[in-house]
């Protein structure tokens, strides 16, 4: 796509659509492009962490620092691909894959006890001690049939998180 300030052609839109598994309509992609250009201050073709963190609503999210590592420097195509699990059309599997990726920061395909503790620490801050977090996690993992030292794979995640109540949808506002 090159420079973000260039106009989006039909070819570009279809390319992005394919890359994000056809989870967004063409209108939604155009709307996302407008948003991308709004966030990308000097039309560099990508958005920096600083520019993401200047969205107050995003900055105050407890997982903002983890997410910003995943979106930092993405071009528009990858930006839409990143957001695609939040489409209403995305399957539970696609959503859980994203959740898995947030836990598995080093991309080894396995989520360890330590990885989960780190995310839990971001979510609870100073309102739970490290001991409390370890205690809760060990207890719950044992109850679910997992050993403290075992690591969870994507299949485990799918097994645990696949409930009908898993809602992870963001609507793209179309002007």
């Amino acid at each position, binding site marked *: 796509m090159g420079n973000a300030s260039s106009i989006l052609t039909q070819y570009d839109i279809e390319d992005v659509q394919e890359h994000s598994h056809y989870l967004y309509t063409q209108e939604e992609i155009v709307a*996302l492009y407008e*948003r991308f250009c*709004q*966030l990308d*201050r000097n039309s560099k073709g990508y958005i920096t962490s600083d520019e*993401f*963190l*200047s*969205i*107050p*609503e*995003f*900055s*105050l*999210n*407890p*997982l*903002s620092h983890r*997410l910003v590592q995943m*979106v930092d420097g993405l071009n528009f195509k990858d930006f839409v691909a990143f*957001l695609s699990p*939040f489409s209403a059309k995305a399957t539970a599997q696609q*959503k859980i894959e*994203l*959740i898995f990726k*947030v*836990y598995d920061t080093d991309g080894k395909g396995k989520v360890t006890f330590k990885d*989960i503790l780190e*995310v*839990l620490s971001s*979510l*609870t*801050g*100073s*309102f*739970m001690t490290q001991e*409390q977090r370890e205690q*809760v*996690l060990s*207890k*719950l*993992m044992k*109850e*679910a049939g*997992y050993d403290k030292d075992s690591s969870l794979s994507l299949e485990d*995640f799918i097994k*645990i*998180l696949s*409930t009908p*109540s*898993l*809602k*992870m*949808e*963001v*609507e*793209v*506002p179309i002007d």
Partner: protein
Amino acid sequence: MAGMESTSAEMDLDRPNLEEYLPSDSIHGSGSPKNLHLRDLLDISPTLTEAAGAIVDDSFTRCFKSNSPEPWNWNIYLFPLWCTGVVVRYGILFPLRLLTLLFGWIIFWAGFIPAHILLKGQEKLRRKIERKLVEMMCSFFVASWTGVVKYHGPRPSMRPHQVFVANHTSMIDFIILEQMTAFAVIMQKHPGWVGFIQKTILESVGCIWFNRTESKDREVVARKLREHVQGVDNNPLLIFPEGTCVNNQYTVMFKKGAFELGCAVCPIAIKYNKIFVDAFWNSKKQSFTMHLLRLMTSWAVVCDVWYLEPQYLQPGETAIEFAERVRDMIATRAGLKKVPWDGYLKYFRPSPKLTEKKQQIFAEDVLRRLEK
């Protein structure tokens, strides 16, 4: 930006309960606590959804978006018409306006410099003349954009113990209000020719300077505000409590400084008609000079100014609640939407306390369900 985190503590003071405005889904759904499962701990989908929602669209960035109007000149009949319009605007109107402005400046300086120097002894007379000259100069400015301003409501009178507050779209707000009444104003220090004008001309109507980036500045400014309001001879003080320019479709939160001076607060609502030109000055995207040039090459600047009824702090009301009440009046009058964000978030990060609030809710929920 250096020093961003250290100054975020300052912003707590002006914030009402943001949680009332922001959607924070209770992490575990309905009110009655159920038993805790591994699933509940691992399911970060509500938090991720909030984050993605903010990436896709957020109410803060919307306040500073200049909505460019739909291009209407796209067919064979309208395009030549538009081209003629461009020729008229740039070739005829702009030079005429520039000349008007130049003429105005000459008259202004011809009156201001002598008055400033010769009448040094007679303060009252000098101030009166300088005030009139500033009002006149502002009228010239307004004429240079073919400004059509409709004022509604009683004109401000010069009395002590009152401040005027207005919503802020561009520095031209000040000029439009100043042509009717010589206000004293509180402004951010600017560089360049604007800074020069601030130092010389605006001194004569009475101005207070602040510097956004200096945290100690706040107390000094609060004291200056108080002193000004109590002075009998001072011009009525005009404050833009938003602290930054917003796109005239939304209002950001009012800073409470203007509302804790113990005097009457007179709200002014300003609404620009976008059909003619979008008067929003996005200071990050263009300099004030470019902004003025854009105004001078458009057809007209049309706006409505409403002087609303003076408000007083009610018993039992905090300064922040007072500020919100007045903001509500102005937003309703000018047809603006309210967002719960501090305008300074344009320059600084939000306070970590907001993140901590979310962490607290989650942690307490987990601990509570654990005990079951």
